[in-house]
């Protein structure tokens, strides 16, 4: 493999029902940084059916080029035709970096593509940067420059590893949603659009979709929220979440929760923060009646400001909180809501 042949930062621009997923814009934002460090450009790979019209949006969020793979076989996500599409693009255009969202699609597509093009894949990255590998020069061992260094949590968020892929190309990563920053869209930006179709011939690997069942939920994306008012089992009941709803409303925030709350059926899984839920990093995170098990804190400890309210003074949540109140949430939260209302009204 001649590594020098591989150039450019590629992003898999996930779309579902011909709507680009937010993760695609986040990846483009990061790809722009990486491309500027490498003095190269950013290409979005748009895979689907009748999706060409979405290319301008990708340009507005930072794509210099958009490769469109458009085919009826690609209407709804299926592992094989999407793998064939992305792997063929990689083999044809030879990017040095390929970023894929760590979504239910990307975490299936990424591994299958990496196995097909015979390269490494680092999962669920939270930090991506360009640097040397090895990071520090060891003896006479050669150090490679301009490598993608991919940092990810492991072990339930207890360890952090930085991974490189020095001898294979492309360097592939899936990236957690809600971590990378989108750029402010540049209205009217245009990208060079390249249409590419490697041909799709169904075989036994093309599974048949019998049915698509959309779970109609009126649920907000908590990873997008600037202020999260999050409750745990200490809130006491589904009904008592009303206290949190009221506080969230005053602050223009969103309610989220811990795993225990989902297990008890008080809230939907989509609102769960933590290792098996979503990673969030809002400007303010209220942890109310949340003890703060490591599986929870792994998903929220990078929030700018963490405020914890808990009656147990030994709750581990206080170890990550900026401001911790030991006390009864049933008294404090409603009073806080009322006084905030007054304080905001006076501004």
């Amino acid at each position: 493999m001649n590594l020098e042949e591989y150039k450019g930062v590629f992003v898999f621009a996930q779309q579902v029902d011909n709507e680009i997923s937010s993760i695609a814009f986040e990846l483009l934002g990061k790809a722009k940084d990486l491309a500027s460090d490498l003095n190269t450009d950013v290409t979005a790979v748009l895979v689907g059916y009748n999706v060409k019209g979405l290319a301008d949006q990708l340009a507005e969020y930072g794509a210099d080029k958009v490769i469109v793979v458009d085919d009826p076989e690609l209407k709804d996500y299926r592992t094989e035709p999407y793998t064939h599409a992305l792997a063929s693009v990689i083999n044809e255009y030879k990017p040095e970096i390929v970023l894929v969202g760590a979504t239910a699609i990307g975490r299936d597509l990424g591994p299958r593509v990496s196995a097909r093009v015979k390269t490494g894949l680092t999962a669920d990255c939270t930090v991506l940067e360009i640097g040397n590998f090895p990071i520090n020069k060891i003896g006479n061992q050669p150090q490679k420059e301009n490598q993608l260094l991919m940092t990810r949590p492991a072990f339930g968020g207890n360890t952090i590893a930085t991974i490189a892929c020095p001898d294979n190309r492309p360097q592939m990563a899936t990236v957690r949603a809600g971590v990378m920053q989108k750029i402010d869209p540049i209205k009217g930006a245009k990208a060079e659009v390249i249409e590419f179709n490697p041909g799709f011939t169904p075989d036994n690997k093309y599974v048949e979709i019998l049915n698509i069942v959309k779970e109609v939920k009126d649920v907000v994306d908590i990873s997008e929220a600037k202020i999260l008012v999050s409750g745990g089992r200490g809130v006491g009941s589904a009904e008592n979440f009303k206290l949190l709803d009221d506080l969230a409303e005053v602050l223009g925030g969103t309610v989220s929760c811990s795993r225990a709350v989902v297990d008890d059926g008080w809230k939907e899984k989509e609102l769960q923060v933590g290792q098996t839920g979503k990673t969030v990093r809002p400007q303010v995170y209220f942890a109310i009646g949340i003890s703060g098990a490591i599986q929870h804190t792994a998903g929220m400890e990078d929030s700018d400001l963490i405020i914890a309210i808990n009656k147990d003074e030994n709750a581990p949540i206080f170890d990550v909180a900026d401001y911790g109140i030991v006390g009864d949430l049933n008294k404090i939260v409603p009073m806080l809501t009322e006084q905030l209302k007054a304080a905001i009204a006076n501004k």
Partner: protein
Amino acid sequence: MKIVVCIKQVPDTKGGVKFNPDGTLDRGAMLTIMNPDDKAGLEAALRLKDQYGAEVTVLTMGLPKAEEVLREAMAMGADNGILVTDRVLGGADTWATSTTIAGALRNIDYDLIITGRQAIDGDTAQVGPQISEHLDIPVISYAQDIKVDGDSVIVQRQYEDRYHEVKAKMPCLVTALSELNEPRYMTPGGIFDAYDKEITVWGRADLKDVDDSNLGLKGSPTKIAKASDKVRKGAGEKVTLDPDEAVKYLIGKLEEKHVI
């Protein structure tokens, strides 16, 4: 029908993570368990066995100690156990792990391979789809329901806001979510029988159609540049105040930080 379930022995991150005095993880002090998604995959296989009749083989790659999870699986009802263990296979990333397991699977007849979606130590969700690619069979990830229909499987494949009901011809590979079911307990008779059964142990030489360059640490395209235990942000202020004092304190802080 022949079903192979790939399982992994993992440290129990849920039961309480232990740290050494220097702040690093004390892996030796942590209990090991069968990875939860894998256990759900095993349960799904055992239910298919109960319903349609099937031979269920469990396969694991790991240290010799990983035999424990095979015994556990057999005590739950799996028929055969295969342990893939060899020093040269150590240090494998997901690529080299998947080539190893695919190399082992090429020795066995299978209609359906089930893996967990992901293991709780690495959380990558890569090995299942990568195995399927090496074996050139279809994969359905994130299964929340698995049924057999003649020579096909019908699986509910979960996404964030929907599921697809998907049909694939066997042989194929399915990755299981722990939400799939509630795994059964081992039975006393099962535990007794499990310790009587032979476990097949395979090393490097038993892997079929895999080049050395794809195995172990050397065969891993990804390399660890740096690993550290997470440095936790120190605790901030903790106060115990009457509710009205507490509220005043919080509003003061929110103003100070320009949140309001």
